[in-house]
């Protein structure tokens, strides 16, 4: 061996799993592709343009801000791309281009870079942008184009369509029973044949992507299960109490952004609790707030608000869900006697 050649010396361990931040992030992007494709199928080219503009916008904004704040530009890690695609999937397909760009600036700027960049933000950047846009431009954010499948004929000739959750909310305002509404069928909703934001319409496509992430270990089951579980159970309980006023649990499951939120946004590693126990509490909180807003709030949909609110609780949850350290339990009873 050549003495001139310096050996690398580091602390153990000397081997590493193949996981890396870019790998995690780009996998998440890839797993959102099915949902994106479904939205393109139903909403056509505008959907694709929205996704593309949002992703490019977020990446460019991140690069510019990194330069401004004199930080290394790390857009290749894919985090900005994830934010971009998630933001797009939270917008209606006909969102005006300027609104998308404002969203990108808010998401990356206010949501992430001011906190110091990746890993340091408190709130999910895409959701910060979505809620910001929802409050600032309520009209543009809530006029949904009617779904028109590429193949086959459209169910209506209408240009715009209300989301199922929007219909339910309106009915509640007017005092009409839910039964009298012309809601899309459950299978249609599961496939994605309904009005709504790009990414939230197809429950099946979202589940497919999330199952792969679960298999890879990039998300854990805790948050989705407790989030979705609590929404469905709570929703069903109120449905039993008053079926005219409150929709069923299965409706809650597929209508609106529950799956997108629970599978892809509440599971955002940076802004969710670090332990399984914490994630269960986090998901439960998200679920309860979602149901409360959906049933009694001013907005038809509460997933974004719920996740954002629970993001604020994460530091407190983390503080009180520290795992049990090894070596801090006495031996079990039988053992103690034996010893």
């Amino acid at each position, binding site marked *: 061996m050549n003495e001139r050649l310096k050996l690398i010396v580091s602390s153990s*361990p*000397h*081997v590493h799993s193949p996981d890396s931040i870019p*790998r995690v992030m780009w996998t998440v992007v890839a797993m959102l592709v099915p949902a994106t494709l479904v939205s393109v199928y139903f909403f056509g080219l505008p959907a694709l343009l929205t996704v593309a503009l949002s992703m490019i916008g977020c990446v460019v904004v991140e690069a510019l801000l990194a330069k401004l704040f004199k930080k290394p530009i790390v857009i290749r890690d894919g985090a900005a791309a994830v934010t971009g695609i998630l933001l797009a999937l939270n917008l209606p397909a006909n969102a005006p281009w300027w609104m998308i760009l404002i969203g990108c600036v808010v998401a990356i700027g206010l949501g992430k870079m001011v906190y110091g960049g990746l890993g340091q933000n408190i709130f999910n950047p895409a959701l910060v942008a979505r809620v910001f846009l929802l409050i600032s431009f309520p009209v543009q954010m809530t006029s949904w184009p009617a779904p028109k499948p590429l193949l086959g004929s459209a169910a209506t000739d209408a240009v715009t369509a209300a989301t199922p959750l929007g219909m339910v909310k309106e009915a509640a305002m007017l005092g009409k029973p839910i039964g009298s509404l012309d809601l899309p069928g459950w299978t249609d909703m599961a496939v994605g044949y309904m009005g709504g934001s790009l990414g939230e319409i197809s429950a099946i496509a979202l589940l497919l992507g999330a199952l792969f992430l679960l298999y890879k270990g990039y998300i854990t089951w805790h948050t989705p299960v407790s989030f979705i579980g609590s929404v469905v159970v709570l929703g069903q309980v109120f449905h039993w109490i008053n079926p005219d006023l409150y929709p069923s649990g299965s409706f809650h499951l597929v209508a609106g952004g529950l799956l997108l939120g629970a599978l892809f946004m509440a599971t955002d590693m940076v802004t969710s609790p670090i332990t399984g126990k914490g994630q269960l509490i986090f998901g439960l909180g998200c679920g309860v707030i979602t149901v409360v807003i959906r049933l009694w709030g001013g907005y038809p949909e509460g997933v974004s608000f719920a996740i954002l609110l629970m993001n604020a609780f994460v530091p407190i949850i983390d503080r009180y869900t520290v795992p049990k350290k*090894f070596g*801090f339990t006495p031996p079990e009873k039988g053992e103690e006697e034996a010893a």
Partner: protein
Amino acid sequence: MIGRMFRGGVHPPEKKLSADVPVKPLPVPEQVIVPLSMHIGAPAKPVVQGGDEVKLGQLIAESSGFVSANIHSPVSGVVRTIEPRDHPLGRKLPCFVIDNDGKDDAVEFTPLGDWPTAEPKALIEAIHAAGIVGMGGATFPTHVKLSPPPQFPIDTVIANGVECEPYLTSDHRLMLEHPDRVLEGLRIVMRVLGLDKGFIGIEQNKPDAIALMREKVADHPGVEVLALPVRYPQGAEKQLIYAATKREIPSGGLPMNVGCLVQNVGTLAAIRDAVVEGKPLVERIVTVTGEAVAQPVNLLVRLGTPIRLLIEAAGGATVPTAKVISGGPMMGLAQYTDQTPVIKGSSGLLVLGPEQAPVIEAGPCIRCGACVRGCPMGLQPTELARLVQNDDFAAAEAWGVLDCIECGSCAFGCPAHIKLVHWIRFGKAEVMARRKKG
């Protein structure tokens, strides 16, 4: 008496490249470098000087305190000098430099005779005299471990044949080639502690060793083979005891706190040799492996042999060497020179090329929790690293930084490539220094 699987842990690729390569002895080198510190505790005190002639197996340094160990000459020849040389621990420490005369002229070994009837004290004395230390890597003097204070009676002894570190196969080969030496050593330890039951823990990725041991225990009454699930760090003392007995060593405690004692299988074989043959510890099996050597091998090596010769025996490096590691990839010590010698705790020598040991800059923590899920001690490595990074050592101590066993599970799985173990080791060192200051 089967325990449970510990929480956490990871599955690094096993890469046991040399699992099927029988152990072969490495020719004795012309010069050996024998450090005075090949064990935890006080360095041994030399009893020979530069210029003295020594025989193979002759005592050249004696233990100099309660926690210390004897050292014997691994060759016959002349002591050239005692001077600081590069030590596997990464600094220069006093070493014997002995020129080999090539005769392997040995001192006469005095076996203890019939050990099953011998007094435990005599057995411990024989082990002490042979300079035996923990050969799994911790190098704790064995005779001290075998003399627990009376308030901590030992009721369970476990032979550690888990070898959960990737790449390493020295214990595996030992169990395959010398099962009786291992088992007899275990029975000697049982005799010392007055026990009639002992376990030998082996990971299920070594089915041949498990089968062979199950067959052999027929000749060794009281020994039971535990086939343990494959998950790193199954071979860590605390996790092994938990797996075998469901007992958790309390924070800051030792195995004896829960009435257990763990010995590496290599140590047991050495104990048997010391008692049955009167032979001191002067050689050991070392796995020389890694993608960067031509032919991964298991070698029987005299202590004090420079690792450069081991790499040559494995066919030399095939690519420019990036990293040379004494021990396994998860907990081993990276070497900055190939001049360091083999010592009593050198279980393996891992040579990695640039492809296996890339230098990757750490990214920001994305709080994915992989380290928390991977930690077998239930700690939060990312939080510890963050606190240490910000010099908040008091908080790090409160979060249990001292409980870390440095197994590397956290850093192995970290997608941001944060050097969690390094931060934590830094925190531990600072906390200990502060404690000393008072």
